[in-house]
């Protein structure tokens, strides 16, 4: 039996993680082995703990270690606004900006004929329920500016029509963006959404 079999298996497992390949996984494993007490053991403990407790918030779909996430439990969050995002990664991106002080709703994907994802697969019924029960006045659709994202946004807008204000994120030139490098679709969207200075 090879003396490095477990290490090889660990490298192989790490190499499957996003952003890592076999070479970077090898470097990461080597680093962990060298700093066993400082990095590897705490990491292993945390992974065991998170594997046992990580779950979706039953209210908004965020990921946490409690049945209801911190954002939903927080009293400092405005209750009248819900920001709808496609995935937990999008929620984290919104939180990084620190601008939005309301609550979130994670759909868990977008409508996609290709992947056979229909409205019933997403958390749209739960959103509709929350709009009623939490007395929501505004739903902000922060979905990706893709064909699937926009189709989903329109579907949700239809479902919630007349029950609250429905807004979506603006589309256009990113901060620091140079027009010369933008695709024509983005330029068209930016031009259509122009505003007075």
């Amino acid at each position: 039996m090879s003396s490095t079999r477990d290490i090889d298996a660990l490298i192989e497992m790490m190499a499957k993680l996003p952003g890592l390949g076999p070479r970077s996984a090898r470097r990461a494993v080597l680093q962990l082995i060298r700093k066993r007490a400082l990095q590897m053991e705490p990491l292993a403990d945390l992974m065991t703990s998170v594997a046992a407790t990580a779950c979706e918030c039953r209210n908004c779909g965020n990921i946490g270690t409690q049945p209801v996430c911190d954002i939903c439990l927080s009293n400092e969050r405005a209750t009248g606004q819900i920001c709808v995002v496609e995935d937990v990664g999008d929620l984290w991106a919104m939180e990084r900006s620190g601008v939005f002080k309301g609550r979130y709703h994670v759909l868990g994907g977008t409508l996609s004929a290709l992947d056979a994802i229909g409205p019933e697969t997403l958390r749209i019924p739960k959103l509709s329920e929350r709009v009623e029960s939490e007395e929501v006045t505004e739903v902000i659709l922060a979905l990706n500016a893709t064909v699937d994202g926009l189709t989903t946004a329109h579907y949700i807008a239809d479902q919630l029509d007349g029950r609250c204000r429905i807004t979506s994120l603006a589309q256009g030139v990113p901060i620091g963006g140079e027009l010369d490098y933008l695709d024509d679709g983005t330029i068209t969207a930016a031009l259509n959404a122009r505003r007075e200075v």
Partner: protein
Amino acid sequence: MEWRDQGILLSARPYGETGAILEMFTPEHGRHAGVMRGGASRKMAPILQAGAQLDLHWSARLEDHLGTFKAEPMRSRTASAMASRLSLAGLNTVTALLRFCLPERQAYPALYARTETLLDLLPEIALWPLAYLQWEMALLDEMGFGLDLSCCAVTGAVEDLAYVSPRTGRAVSAAGAGDWAARLLPLPPIMLGQGRAPDAEIAAGLRVTGHFLMQNLAPQIAQKPLPEARARFIQRFERGLVAD
């Protein structure tokens, strides 16, 4: 093996971390898939949206391999489709139906030309539903289930055509229909190229084409129901939400 062509992007699905599998509709090579390295990158993501017109270079070691695409953007249609809910639903239904109906690697140059024109009309939302109805008729025709609206299947008359046989797709005149009229599909004049194309007639026309897509084409091709995107488009159109 390699070729160069242009094409309309029907779908792009992630492949690995940075790649994408593109499904294209091209004039000379029909519906054709291939891997595009870096297709999921931040630079390419805005370009690789359904409906985009791309300049393509496909290469593979053997002809039956999936092969790889190199693509340059020619025209993006996402922004024009974003302008209206009906346009977006229309773009979705066209790409979904093409994916559903077309066999792989079989050229349909006439259908390609019609599709390109149809997608270029997306910003003209007042004209689009009629153009879409005509496109569906052309799609049925190309797939071998075309409607024969030239004369009455019963009497041979070319005037007063009012129905379509749900079985054969042939026109039937009011006189020829007789007691069978209730079992036939109403034929709106717009399908004969007559009248001013009111929305109600276009909706009736879409019910006729929908019948043949569902009853004839779907069972033959995929043994699956028609893509949900078409039902959403029809629903949107019938609700009269032409302008958002």
